[in-house]
């Protein structure tokens, strides 16, 4: 793609500016509510200017071992992401390359793993993990999330692998490379943006999941999302603390995405070198 002209650049920036305002206003609300004093959390009209307070952040860490819960979330999200992206993408490569009419069925079967309503399987999972002694461990959540993340990775990566021109792989084969070498040196780098995006999605899904995290963990493996929501008590939704928690747990996600951005750019340059 060519570099856009100045005129086009202005057009792009204007549209992006509008999109950013729309998409980030609720985020601004989280940030501003997280430093808003409780008595004026809701009022008519909404309080826009006020003296910020950091009590919600203080409470967040004082009333719960919140740091530990963030670590739990990180272990679960990174674990499930690494596992799912690795096994999901090699499986996707096989599905993309094997020309057999059964392959579509297999791909579809894998996707269907994501279709079953999770509520119906909470109890059986509880029973399994209780029996296996895995209740309240990060491993239990890694396993459950991987059953949702592997199908996601397989389907995304299949799309990316399908688009890698077969001529490149054939050329490498002619040069004497084996299949694994072709996959590793030719195909995977070209599909790097797909890997990055799969990793981001897997991470985000695992980070945000609520139902299983609530039902399968206690104090040892509780995730940050459940901990934030635990400020919803019987007499109140403790808005300030929930917003402070939401803001804090955004940070690891943003860092992870920024890290993955590098792969996206790499894919871009690879493509343009070709």
């Amino acid at each position: 793609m060519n570099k856009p002209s100045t005129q086009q650049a202005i057009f792009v920036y204007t549209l992006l500016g509008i999109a950013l305002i729309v998409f980030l206003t609720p985020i601004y609300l989280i940030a501003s509510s997280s430093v808003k004093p409780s008595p004026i959390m809701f009022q008519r009209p909404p309080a826009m200017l006020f003296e910020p307070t950091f009590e919600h952040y203080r409470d967040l860490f004082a009333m719960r071992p919140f740091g530990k819960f963030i670590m739990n979330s990180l272990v679960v999200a990174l674990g499930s992401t690494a596992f799912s992206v690795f096994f999901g993408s090699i499986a996707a490569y096989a599905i993309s390359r094997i020309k057999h009419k059964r392959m579509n069925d297999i791909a579809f079967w894998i996707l269907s793993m994501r279709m079953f309503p999770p509520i119906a399987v909470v109890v059986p999972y509880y029973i399994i993990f209780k029996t296996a002694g895995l209740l309240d461990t990060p491993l239990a959540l890694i396993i459950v999330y991987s059953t949702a993340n592997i199908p996601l990775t397989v389907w995304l990566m299949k799309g990316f692998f399908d688009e890698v021109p077969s001529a490149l792989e054939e050329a490498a084969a002619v040069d004497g490379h084996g299949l694994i070498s072709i996959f590793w040196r030719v195909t995977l780098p070209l599909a790097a943006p797909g890997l990055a995006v799969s990793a981001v999605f897997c991470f985000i899904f695992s980070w945000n999941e609520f139902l299983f995290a609530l039902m399968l963990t206690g104090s040892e493996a509780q995730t940050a999302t459940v901990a934030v929501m635990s400020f919803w008590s019987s007499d109140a939704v403790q808005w300030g603390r929930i917003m402070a928690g939401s803001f804090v747990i955004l940070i690891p996600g943003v860092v992870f995405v920024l890290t993955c951005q590098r792969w996206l750019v790499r894919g871009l340059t690879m493509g343009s070198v070709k």
Partner: protein
Amino acid sequence: MAYIRKRNRRIFMTFLLPAMLVLFLTTIYPMLYAGYLSFRSYDLAKPFVPRMFVGWANYQQVLTSGDFLNALSITFQLMVITLSIQLVVGVGLALLVTQRLPGMGVARTLLLIPMMISPVIVGLVWLFLYFPELGYLNYFLSFVGIDPIPWITSPNWALWAIAIADIWQWTPFIMMGTAAALTSLSPEPYEAARIDGNTRWQVFRHVTLPQLKPVLVSLLFLRAIDAFKIYDIIFVLTKGGPGDSTEVLSLYIYRQSFTFWQMGVGAAASFVSLIIIVVLITLFFKSLNRDQTA
């Protein structure tokens, strides 16, 4: 492809099998358990309620219940609204953020933030926006002279309110996936198309879009499946209300399985909804393949 030889087949199998094995092993027991429950009367909270085999009674109860059919219809409405808007806006944003201009990486990350918030919390955040009296949205709208809108407090608006929150959260999913696909496209066809003197729209329509299609289809499938299961946002924003104007399938299943603890009915409803989504996706898939051959 010539390079696929016998030996490679074995390698492909070792690529494919671990994922399949993991999925099979982790889901077989829960699925069998749910299947078994769906033919039983089973109340987890009340062991004193007789637990017995009831044949197809649970399925019959689900399929003849007005609540289930109402939930199905609302789920479809929500899917159509959210998916179509997410697709258009998401692809549009992807085209913007893949321009070779400074700051695009940052913009892409910022636009992704809505996805990084747990849907339950998204529900709470949008409550801030939606309250007719206390909320920010009507306050902002009042500056441009728009009368207060009863976002979550009117049966006519609530579904749209939920759709907007869902679109806000998941448009970045389409954007991110599409942007990644755009960056991995090979540039040759573009240059050819440019040289042929096509307009931008023609290039997009005839060169970019066909190349994007496999990824877009995957993204759309994944979104459709998740939209079919939408739950957390509604649970917080309206819990199906006002009245039953935002009752979706997952809420129905949740209420049967947990609140009422009729786990057999919940399991039966889960299988019915699984069949519906499988049929839907298959039909969609078939029609896409027909397009391809045509």
